[in-house]
């Protein structure tokens, strides 16, 4: 088996037994990137020399007996996470030249664990999008069908994992941006509970919704990454002090006694593709065969999720993105005008169409006379959506649903119609509004051979249970073993 095909778990084992070095492993993955990424476009920046240097240091650490599970493991990092000394663009032309002077907390943690950073992965500009087509540097292709989108906004991360151009990755999820690309690329992606992972150094899109999480080839790989990135950080006032369990201790007792809720609104949603419906129905049968009890439950405000989210997220974004004014960082545009003129030129030239749309939408929703009708109303509906989940989790342990209404769509198919693109987030964004964790795992393939994901959502801080259920499902099925031919 070529080294780049290894899971993190398998590679860590070989490294530990001294059968391979991190330098060998990192070279193999870098060669894979060099061979494939012209066609896939998963990376915005590849740090070849830096990665090899980190790999050699990881091998030294191991020789000195100081290795952890992630020491020497090559990873791709979404370009919205600040990496000290390594260009971080958020896929925006405005940040084309931005070199962070500091590491995000998750990067400090990964570096402490000895992980190797291969480079920065493509995304929708400032994480605003569901297809990675909004990147200021061009789209990423889906490794399963290069004419299709990989999902978004963490599309580069998901495509890199699916195409073996990294062993695992970090993404960010504001309305489904980890889970939906994981689903479209046939891999595993976890959005942790809001507050579980520090957002320090994560470039802010919508601060009450954003959360960093892992994308991997297996559930265990995501658990290994979670063990490193979670935990309280004094530099993020929304990070929580909840104890962090060992996520790799995936419970061995199967799904016996587990109560799984099936939210009827997710299964009866308009526009749910027949192949997706069938794959998720198959997954329900599988968990029942594994001993779980399923029960229909209702999340009655689901249909209002998209409207509430697309008021709240752009409102927060319009405020967060005020910082891109060409003063402290970024590509400044100026003429002979005054300061205001410089702001306008910089922002108008630097931001892409979708980012401008959301800034205007958010500014409008927050503006005098409209605040109560839009932002106020959406924040109240958010409360009702949280109540829905609270009532549901009184009746069941986890919820099972589709991740996206359809498999990956064609590049260009939805770019002309922003609202249609927004509606494709219907199954993922309620988890962000409620702050609960959700995972996407492979559960089937469409008739055209495209991967389909299964979403499992859980109570706040119940990631260990999500990972355990996902792991049992994975072990009982073969979907994760199928790989794209490239």
């Amino acid at each position, binding site marked *: 088996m070529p080294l780049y095909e290894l899971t993190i778990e398998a590679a860590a084992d070989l490294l530990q037994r001294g059968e391979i070095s991190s330098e060998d492993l990192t070279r193999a993955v870098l060669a894979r990137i060099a061979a494939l990424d012209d066609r896939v476009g998963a990376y915005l920046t590849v740090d070849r020399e830096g990665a090899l240097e980190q790999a050699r240091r990881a091998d030294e650490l191991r020789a000195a007996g100081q290795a952890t599970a992630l020491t020497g493991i090559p990873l791709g990092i979404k370009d919205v996470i600040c990496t000290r000394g390594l260009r971080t663009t958020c896929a925006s032309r405005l940040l084309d030249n931005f070199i962070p*002077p500091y590491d995000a907390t998750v990067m400090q943690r990964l570096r402490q664990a000895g992980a190797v950073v291969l480079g920065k992965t493509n995304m929708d500009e400032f994480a605003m999008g569901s297809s990675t087509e909004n990147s200021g540097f061009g789209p990423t292709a889906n490794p399963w069908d290069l004419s299709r989108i990989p999902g978004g906004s963490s599309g580069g991360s998901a495509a890199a994992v699916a195409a073996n151009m990294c062993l695992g990755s970090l993404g960010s999820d504001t309305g489904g941006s980890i889970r939906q690309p994981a689903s479209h690329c046939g891999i595993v992606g976890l959005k942790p509970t809001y507050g579980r992972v520090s957002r320090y150094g994560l470039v802010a899109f919508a601060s009450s919704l954003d959360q960093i999480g892992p994308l991997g080839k297996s559930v265990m790989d995501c658990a290994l990454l979670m063990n490193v990135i979670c935990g309280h950080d*004094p530099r993020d006032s929304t990070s929580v002090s909840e104890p962090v369990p060992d996520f790799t201790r995936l419970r061995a007792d199967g799904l016996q006694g587990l109560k799984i809720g099936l939210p009827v609104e997710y299964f009866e949603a308009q526009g749910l593709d027949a192949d997706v419906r069938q794959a998720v129905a198959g997954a329900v049968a599988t968990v029942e065969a594994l001993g779980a009890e399923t029960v229909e439950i209702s999340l009655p405000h689901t249909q209002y999720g998209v409207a509430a989210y697309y008021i709240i997220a752009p409102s927060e974004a319009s405020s967060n993105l005020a910082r891109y004014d060409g*003063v402290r960082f970024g590509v400044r545009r100026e003429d002979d005008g005054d*300061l205001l003129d410089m702001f306008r030129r910089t922002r108008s030239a630097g931001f892409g169409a979708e980012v401008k749309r959301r800034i205007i*939408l958010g500014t409008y929703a927050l503006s005098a006379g409209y605040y109560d009708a839009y932002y106020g109303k959406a924040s109240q509906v958010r409360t*009702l959506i949280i109540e829905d989940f609270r009532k549901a989790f009184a009746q069941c342990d986890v919820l099972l649903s589709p991740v996206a209404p359809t498999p990956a769509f064609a590049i260009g198919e939805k770019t002309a119609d922003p609202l249609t693109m927004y509606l494709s987030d219907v199954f993922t964004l309620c988890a962000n509004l409620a702050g*609960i964790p959700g995972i996407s795992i492979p559960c089937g393939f469409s008739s055209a051979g495209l991967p389909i994901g299964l979403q499992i959502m859980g109570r706040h801080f119940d990631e260990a249970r999500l990972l355990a259920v996902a792991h049992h499902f994975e072990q009982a099925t073969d979907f994760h073993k199928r790989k794209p031919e490239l």
Partner: protein
Amino acid sequence: MQISKDEVRHVARLARLALEDEALDDMAAQIGTILAYMETLNRIDTTAVQPTAHAVSAPITPVREDVTGEHLPRDQALSNAPAEDGESFVVPRVID
């Protein structure tokens, strides 16, 4: 919900964005479609519902001690500036 070109121009101005006339038409049409969809929220009676700004909040988010911590050295804080003079960010003249 219709939103006029002038309204979009006004909001763009608030957001420090300059849009070409043609882009304004497209933007007004798209924002109008999106706002019309938002009207679905008015089907719900939220009279007695408290708004939520953050789904997970105190008391599990501890407050740090109010002491001076590490901060970026000035040269690093200035390292990405489009224009600086070694001490400050430099911007176009604001006051004549």
